């Protein structure tokens, strides 16, 4: 029997999960339910929506209202769910491919609307499920099965993108610092608006192997090494910033939330048909 936390929030009969040994996804997923547990919201009022990908398999393991949608469309499904029932806490679990490749448009539009959805991207810098093709977040020069000579695409700064698109809570964390994920997910859920949480995670099977970056532990250590807290980062001299990734809460904004605004319209015009 796993821990009480897992017992409570997981569909434990579907464990062990599908993920490879040492895959970081399980770490993020635990952090998410821990955050939900910390806030103490009713399981019946949580809806987890995921796309397609290794990471997006997450929804099936969680004992909430869960949808495993089509590839890239989790946020569009979630928008329908949230608008139809604003009482639900809608959480989107998505991968770097799901969210930033095929799903990029839904991401920027959900952010623009500032709809109250908490999006957690499991960014492993690769398409895991299909076997290791480079993704929009694969660092330039790294290899993937479709980038055998090294990736010439630049990689997105997803947090910058989400912020520019209009998200009102933007943060980044890594599976090394899983406690930070918990805090960020809590903050994201509490933010009434679109929250975007990028979690750097690890794919030992494809990203790690293709790029000769070692075993699961090496990969997590690597995340520890390259990530710097925002406040520290800002103190770093320019030359020391190279190759570093900023983590922490990166942006907070104040804007009306979409479903709230819609309800105002209903309240003003209802019944005048």
């Amino acid at each position, binding site marked *: 029997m796993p821990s009480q936390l897992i017992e409570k929030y997981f569909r434990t009969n579907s464990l062990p999960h599908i*993920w490879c*040994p040492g895959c970081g996804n399980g770490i993020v997923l635990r952090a998410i339910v821990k955050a939900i547990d910390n806030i103490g919201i009713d399981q019946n009022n949580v809806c987890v929506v995921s796309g397609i990908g290794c990471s997006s398999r997450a929804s099936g393991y969680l004992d909430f209202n869960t949808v495993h949608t089509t590839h890239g469309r989790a946020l569009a499904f979630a928008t329908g769910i949230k608008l139809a029932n604003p009482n639900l806490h809608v959480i989107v679990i998505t991968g770097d491919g799901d969210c930033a490749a095929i799903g990029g448009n839904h991401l920027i539009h959900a952010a623009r609307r500032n709809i109250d959805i908490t999006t957690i991207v499991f960014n492993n810098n690769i398409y895991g499920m299909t076997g290791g093709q480079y993704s929009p977040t694969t660092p330039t020069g790294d290899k993937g099965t479709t980038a055998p000579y090294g990736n010439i695409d630049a990689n997105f700064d997803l947090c910058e993108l989400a912020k520019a698109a209009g998200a009102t809570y933007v943060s980044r964390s890594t599976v090394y610092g899983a406690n930070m994920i918990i805090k960020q997910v809590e903050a994201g859920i509490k933010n009434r608006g679109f929250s975007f949480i990028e979690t750097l995670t690890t794919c030992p099977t494809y990203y790690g192997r293709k790029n000769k970056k070692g075993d699961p532990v090496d990969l997590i250590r690597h995340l520890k090494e390259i990530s710097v807290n925002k406040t520290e980062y800002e103190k770093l001299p320019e030359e020391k910033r190279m190759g570093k990734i900023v983590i922490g809460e990166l942006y907070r904004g104040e804007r009306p939330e979409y479903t709230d605004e819609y309800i105002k319209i209903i309240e003003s015009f209802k019944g005048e048909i």
Partner: protein
Amino acid sequence: MKTLEKLNVEENLCKGCGICVAFCPKNVLEIKSGKVHIKNLEDCIECGLCELRCPDYAIYLVFRG
């Protein structure tokens, strides 16, 4: 106040990735024939880092009270 009852290992969930072992600050754990194994419980400081980072929910602290 909660006190540690035990450090639980759920063997059938453990995939032997070694993450908990590597990041345990007190070197409490080890891998034995592909599964986690508690080497010296007495050194455990109940920091919970193993539980926090186990991707497979195979190790966790149980508290009493």
